[in-house]
């Protein structure tokens, strides 16, 4: 019975990607804006996020469906700038929890406002519903399987930045609501199909990564 048993140190659990970064769902443009402007704008990240989401909500409330194309373009630009900069600059760690919610509010509100100006709110609801699947799946995928979606799916989903631009382009082209319905249907179908396929892979591999269910008080 030897007292000193030399064994390799305990196997480290794989370090998961940062939840906030995954939940934000930034696209390439937002990240580029963040890299270019992030270090140079001396405004706290929290202020930028509140400003961006607040600007969209204010525009949607005040101008509403009567907003001109130019005004909607300005709104989209404000959102891209404020949120984009925060893609590399986070508030202090104890306030990280507020970031993903603000990004979602800014994104969904923009989509609804843009569609509203073309009398296409049902199509916006369809798109937002499809997006909620993607966004909840980001959370559950990380929690249950310790995974993030494949790169191609993230590119296809375009990030919140890509989506508000596409929505504005569709609005400018007069393609609402039909194009938005098609978009929502495609995005939803691809997201669901990829999730089902990746679950099948995970179950077959008998991998042990990830956790089973939410902890008390979180989610439902």
């Amino acid at each position, binding site marked *: 019975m030897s007292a000193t048993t030399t064994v390799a140190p305990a196997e480290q659990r794989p370090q998961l990607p940062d*939840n906030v970064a995954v939940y934000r769902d930034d696209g390439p443009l937002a990240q580029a804006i963040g890299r270019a402007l992030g270090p140079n704008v001396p405004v706290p990240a929290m202020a930028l996020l509140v400003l961006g989401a607040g600007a969209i909500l204010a525009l949607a409330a005040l101008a509403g469906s009567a907003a001109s194309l130019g005004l909607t373009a300005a709104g989209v630009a404000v959102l891209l700038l404020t949120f984009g900069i925060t893609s590399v600059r986070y508030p202090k760690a104890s306030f990280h929890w507020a970031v*993903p919610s603000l990004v*979602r509010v800014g994104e969904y509100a923009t989509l609804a406002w843009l569609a509203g100006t073309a009398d296409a709110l049902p199509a916006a609801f369809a798109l937002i519903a499809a997006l*909620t699947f993607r966004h909840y799946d980001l959370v559950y995928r990380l929690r249950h399987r310790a995974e993030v979606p494949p790169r191609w799916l993230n590119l296809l989903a375009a990030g919140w930045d890509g989506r508000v631009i596409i929505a504005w382009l569709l609005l400018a082209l007069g393609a609402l609501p039909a194009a938005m319905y098609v978009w929502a249907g495609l995005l939803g179908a691809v997201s669901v199909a990829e999730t089902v396929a990746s679950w099948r892979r995970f179950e077959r591999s008998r991998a042990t990564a990830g956790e089973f269910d939410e902890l008390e*008080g979180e989610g439902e």
Partner: protein
Amino acid sequence: MTDTGTAVGGRAPAAGAPAGDPTATTTAIVVAGAPAAGGGAAALLPWERGTVLERLLGQLDDLGIRTVCVLVRPAHEAAVRAVAGDRVRVSPDTAADLRAIAEAAAAPGGGGIVILPGEIVTHREALAGLLKDPRVVTGTLLGGGWRARQFAFRVRSKRGRVISAASPYHTAHRPTSAFLGVLKVAAADRPALVTSAARLAELTADPSAEWRDELERKTEMWRGALWRAAHRGGEEADEGDGEDEPIDEFADDPEEPETPADPVLSAEDDALLREKLAAAPEDATALALVGLVRSGTHVGVNRLRRLFWARPLSAAAVARAEVDILDYDEDKVLLDSAVKASDGFFTTFFVSTYSRYIARWAARRGFTPNQVTTFSVLIGFLAAAAFATGERWGLVAGAILLQAAFTTDCVDGQLARYTRTFSKLGAWLDSIFDRTKEYACFAGLAIGASRMGDPVWTLACAAITLQTARHFSDFSFGAGQSRMIGDIEQPPLERSLDAAGLAAAERRARAQQEPPAEQPAEPPPRPEPAQPDPLPRRVLRAWHTIDRLPGVRWVKKMAAFPIGERFAAISISAALFDPRVTFVVLLSWGGFAVLYTLSGRVLRSIVR
């Protein structure tokens, strides 16, 4: 008495772990070093026609654990060998116990290991709850009931993870639960067990002054607890268990009679204390737990719930346990504890009260949780379709169907917990289908409203955005907390105080304008903060304190607008009024919930 049996049909096949299951526990180390009152090993105390140890070995065998090693003191070897045969291994002292644990963990191959004391008396289901729960990879059995378990070493757990554990030589600052002796270590965490148990063996062979002082402090703590129990006067209503992780992280222990400086115990209590003091330094299981926690291993939590548990150290205590365990209806306890303790008001009082019986019925009919989940989402789609008709009968039918969907949604989780058929896919289906049902009903209501000539798509878009943002705030807040818990820097095993205890001692030392003492400066059980806390912390403490008032916890839960309340609000407002009212209710209550949770979280973030 067949307290090893269970009433649930079809659970027997689960006894043997499926081949290749990486989470299966295959080895048990039974630490039988604790002495009984009047000599002999506590594990050899008589239980019915056999011994406590025989009963435990039978339970382990029934749970499919084939490799068992009983660590026994040389004096009791022959007696234990008569019970456990060649599974016995002689171990002269606690240090040797820990070396044996390290060696067993270092042995090549094999799956998980369970370490437990030989004198433990509990239900098979209590052990199964920990060993057969795939959600807890490495974990412990914990319980509440402070007063009844005054001798159990304590732990502090947060978000389902043990962040500090006590042993004869270690303390847990601001404990939340009692460690009930059972420690399950997954195959992947065996290397951490090897390293920490080997180190503990060295330290335990010759306890340092700091360690000896800690044991001395515990002796006084136990003496005080016994004195208080004797002077409390009858009220012993502290057996409650289930959700014993206090919501109140700033609370001190429940109010107790003032303990004198040198409490004098009755002869009976004095004998109890002496039994405990003889057994405490032999508690290799508690030391092994401290070793794992201090090495940063993720040690999960499984709760005893309302099952029976005891660690008798005398024949009289065993006799009491033999009688007490008869009062427990294992199946009823299992069914009751299948109900999630953290559910909201509506779910707890209007759904779980009967849904648990549907869960039991489904278990007996052999339905799987995933089948029930799928059934639930189908009813949810029917509800959405009924809402979309825009007719009064449709709104009423949709309201009823949505409640049926919600009930079955509660059933699936209860069925999974009752039958212990947990799967990650099941957890995912449950979560994603909940969201699907809710948002499908939003769509149905908005379509119905348009048909009724009152389009509400703006409100529908606002409602889905608000609810998603609320969920993401919860997800992110939870993830941040878990990360913080994982980042706690654990002090080395030599230190008796844990991370929080050391920090508190340092704060006290600084407040007294003295250099930090080398020894844990005479740690009083309830240190008084030297200076008043900052306002946000005081507000938070007051906020937690009012939880003790009856009903306040439920009001707070309702204010957060959980799923049961949301579904009830949808059903009632849609059936009685129209979709516009439904969305207005969802947005107002949800908006109030945002302000409510937001203020709490901002306060906590400032305090941090």
